[in-house]
């Protein structure tokens, strides 16, 4: 059986999620292994969410928010960026480094950007292989 990466994508309501919506409306394709969770703002991203996703066996975690300067709540994405940088050091120590967690931005109208990000990330996870924690099937 071929390895199909399972990825959890945390998207903010105002940009990331709308971009994913746009991608759907425009009939752009991205892998079915991208599971989207909508948050009001990436600023509410907790290190726990990321660690819990890996504990459940996901191969990668994406956080998609607004571009810097256009956060609906002014500074949520900056807060998320700092938080994700810290959790990355923890992931590296756990042997889950190598870019299994990425944070990026796509504005509400950038459906194609979201599809590209999702395609690239899943492709990268496919090259890296399954997460060492993947023994329970994700979802």
């Amino acid at each position, binding site marked *: 059986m071929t390895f199909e990466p399972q990825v959890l994508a945390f998207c903010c309501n105002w940009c990331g999620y709308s971009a994913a919506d746009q991608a759907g409306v425009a009939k752009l394709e991205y892998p079915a292994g991208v599971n989207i969770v909508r948050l009001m703002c990436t600023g509410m991203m907790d290190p*726990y969410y990321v660690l819990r996703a890996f504990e459940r066996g996901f191969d990668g975690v994406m956080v998609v928010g607004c571009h810097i300067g256009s956060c609906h709540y002014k500074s949520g994405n900056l807060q998320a960026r700092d938080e994700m940088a*810290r959790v990355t050091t923890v992931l590296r120590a756990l042997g889950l480094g190598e870019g299994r967690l990425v944070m990026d931005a796509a504005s509400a109208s950038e459906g194609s950007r979201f599809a590209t990000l999702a395609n690239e990330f899943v492709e990268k996870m496919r090259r890296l292989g399954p997460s060492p924690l993947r023994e329970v099937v994700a979802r």
Partner: protein
Amino acid sequence: MTDAVSLQVALGPAPVARVDPALQVLTAEGCIQCNKCTFSCPVHRVNVLFSPRKVILQAYLGGADDVDESDLWACLTCGECQVACPTEVPYPAFIRAQREKLRPVMERMAPCKHGGFKEIVSKIMTRPNLNQDRRAWIGDGLKVADRGDVIYFTGCLPYLDGIFSYCDSARIGRAAIKLMNTAGIVPVVANSERCCGHDALWNGDSATFETLARANAKWIKETGAKRLVTTCAECYSMLRYEYPQVVGDWNGLEVLHMSELIEELVKAGTLKFTKPVEVKVTYQDPCRLGRQSKEYDAPREVLRAIPGVQFVEMDRVRENAMCCGVGAYSNCDAATKFMQQDRLEEAASKADHMVTACPHCRIHFSCYLDGKPIDPLPDLKIVDLTELAAQALG
């Protein structure tokens, strides 16, 4: 036994059949309801509704299921009540057993602060295929090995900075390696190390604890080391007293706290403190090293051995030492903040540095000093014993 019988007589016949087996196993049936535990309890001074005596009584009358959940999580398991108890009821062990027992039916898990971070990291470490990188924080100029006679058990030091960014906990680890290198020891720091399982055990998750204990015992025995050193009071109490109950005897492996190793090296003359450290310090006994492991003297001897250090005792020391306010990351509330302010003020009235021998005491007190409480902050620095000793190396 007679005490339990007289209690049952006083309370009428009903409890006889309902006495919880946990009470008997833990000799909590020796409770004579004298209330000394409640008066010694630091949580009770703020949260007057919390009373260790009441919890034991509830367990008597209705079995463990009648114990209130919030009471179960309010206890810090610091052990001050056990010291005060005339019949030596092991109250922390009783709380631990109740947490374990009620875990399946509890509405909420341990109210772990920091969003469950420590809990989830130790859960991840129970996985067999983990490929950790536990040496990234060490940096240049320090020597560690894959095999050797002495293991340095780092515990959660490589992970703490990911969340407690105000603390730089890895500094303790670097200081420990520097001290050992100076004394000619190249310690083993293993990537296969796992969390010691302290928090899991004390929050009533003994399945996770046992998995971690077995995984750790396996690699420790494989290295063939003779000694294991840790800078953490929690790891120390686990590896020394709890692991043998799960994984059997250590077969000659000696578990040491860093303070014990420094004391020994200084006495043997292999470690010499050359640079005076001109500070006035006081020492905070961590509950896991002090009351639980009865190691009060080694850290004090180390402080006395460092040139320039002026060591002053606080009023509440050794078995009466005040807890840092958090046990196993399962409680942080008004009582915690009150205790921290109280303890820091006491320390500040005696010295300008508070030395502790547990990275978690250091984190909890530093957290208080990092915050913006209503009371003026005590003018005090929190340092680890290992850090201070390494400063004296020059």
